[in-house]
């Protein structure tokens, strides 16, 4: 029982495949990091896993059931997805945004139950937003806003949480705060977390399992220790890395030192 993708193929434009025969298995109850260069298909994979996109071929299985067979509400109660740059309408308050997370649990009239209230409050507390709950989103800092969106995903109270670059735009303290929050959710509530991250150390220090993609294919998957080796990082990102062991031998640190030069690391445009 987990989240499993079986030989997924997908392209936005005919002839330029984004994902090719990609098979991955997301271990349940663990934190999985998706890494890879810009445009390698990380975000696309997350969208396919949340059925925002439909694969051309291949299948996805969630908890032993084909993703296609989920009703919209059932899926929204099982899996939450925070996309890269979500936008909220002007004038929306933090609390109003987070309350949207209860949408898949509400009836036609949207009546709020005490369970809804509790979950929203819990999501606000976990993201330290209780004091800001009545603020308008546009009046928040980038970090606070990002936390509000994470709170929305938390309020969905799902077994699975997918996050596309949850630490982007945050200062280093807030980055760690988000990652520690995800760790806590994983440890205390046994939630399965899948996150796209760019900082190699966010993957190596906080994830149990790392999936590295390159050119729409699986490059390598394994424990942080297996992925964060000079050889793998060098060929995956085209950089010369410094890899050294941390206090925990299972979680090496990784510092990109220099590019390999001559086009090797040329950055491709991210596909929307």
């Amino acid at each position, binding site marked *: 029982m987990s989240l499993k993708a079986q030989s997924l193929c997908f392209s936005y434009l005919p002839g330029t495949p984004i994902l090719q025969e990609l098979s991955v298995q997301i271990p349940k109850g663990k934190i999985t990091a998706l890494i890879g260069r810009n445009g390698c298909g990380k975000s696309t994979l997350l969208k396919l896993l949340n059925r*925002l996109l439909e694969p051309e071929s291949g299948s996805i299985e969630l908890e032993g059931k084909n993703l296609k067979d989920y009703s919209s*509400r059932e899926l929204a109660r099982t899996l939450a997805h925070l996309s890269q740059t979500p936008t909220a309408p002007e004038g929306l308050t933090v609390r109003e945004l987070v309350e949207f*997370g209860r949408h898949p649990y509400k009836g036609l009239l949207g009546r709020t139950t005490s369970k809804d209230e509790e979950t929203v409050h819990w999501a606000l507390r976990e993201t330290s937003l209780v004091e800001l709950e009545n603020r308008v989103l546009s009046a928040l800092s980038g970090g606070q806003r990002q936390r509000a969106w994470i709170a929305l995903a938390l309020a969905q109270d799902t077994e699975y949480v997918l996050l596309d670059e949850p630490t982007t735009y945050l200062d280093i303290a807030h980055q760690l705060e988000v990652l520690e929050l995800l760790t806590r959710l994983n440890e205390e509530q046994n939630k399965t977390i899948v996150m796209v991250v760019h900082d190699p150390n966010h993957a190596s220090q906080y994830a149990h399992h790392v999936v590295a993609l390159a050119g729409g294919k699986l490059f390598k998957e394994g424990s942080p220790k297996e992925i964060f080796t000079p050889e793998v990082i060098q060929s995956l990102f085209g950089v010369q890395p410094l890899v050294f062991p941390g206090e925990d031998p299972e979680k090496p640190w990784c510092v990109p030192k220099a590019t390999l030069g001559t086009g090797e690391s040329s950055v491709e445009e991210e596909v929307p």
Partner: protein
Amino acid sequence: MRRDFPKKFLVLVGLVALAAIFSLSVGATDTPLAAVSEQLRERGGVVYLFRLPRVLSAILVGLCFAISGTLLQSLTRNPLASPDLLGVTSGGGLATVVAILLGGSTIGPALPWLAFAGASVVAGIIWTLGRNSTPQKFILTGVALSAFTQAVITLLLVTYAPSAAEAMIWLKGSLFGRGWIHVKHLLPWAILSLGGGLAVAHTANPLALGPNVATSLGVRLSLLRPLLWFLSVASAAAAVAVAGTIGFVGLLVPHLARRMCGPDLRTSVPFSGFLGALFVLVADTLGRIIAPPLEIPAGLICAFLGAPYFGFLLWKGQTRI
């Protein structure tokens, strides 16, 4: 839902009632309130036969236009979407002009249905052309079609200038001479508009966060989008059919309602509905009393009141557009 909503809504409904009472008592000859209530009880006299249906028509027309705009703005996620901008209104206008020019006054009773058909045809074309594209493209499709329809209307008016006077007045959006038959035509659509709008309100709320987030929250866009389009087109078409092309209500009122009670459709649908009712009713009453015996069409008053206010909002740079 914001806590102060019930209070605000009650005040609004009270204002509509006050405006209605005022409107019933003024006219070519002012009627004292005692006589107004007597005529209403006896179901006779100028108040019951002429003023009451006109007041009710104004209320229902305003309600339909405003709810149509609110639903369209939710559907397209764009605060500038409105039935006039998207060509639904002018579709009804074109059908009516053609009908009036061809049939003259014999066409009378069929007019609402023809206008309704015209609006629906244009709406169908917009939906077919634009439904699979981005909200921006969808709106631009409507704008283009609207401009085209307007051009055809103008061409017809210019070509048949002598006989086009009646069509002209209709196009300016007027409630002159609207009677019980029009109220009967409007009422079911207004109920559908308000009832349907309220029924989909909660489900449609996450659309404000964009299609991806809405889908992640369990909203079925493939069902919800056509439903919203149908409700907004049906309401606007019914209103156009009775009152002609009253502009600005569908654009301005939803926007104002959102500023006053927040983005939750469960509140902004009924609030915008009654605000639209108030707006058109006041416009029509003003049009009757400013320069009697001349009547200024409600559509013109709406534009006179609406355009500067809209400019004022944009100029002030209010964030809550």
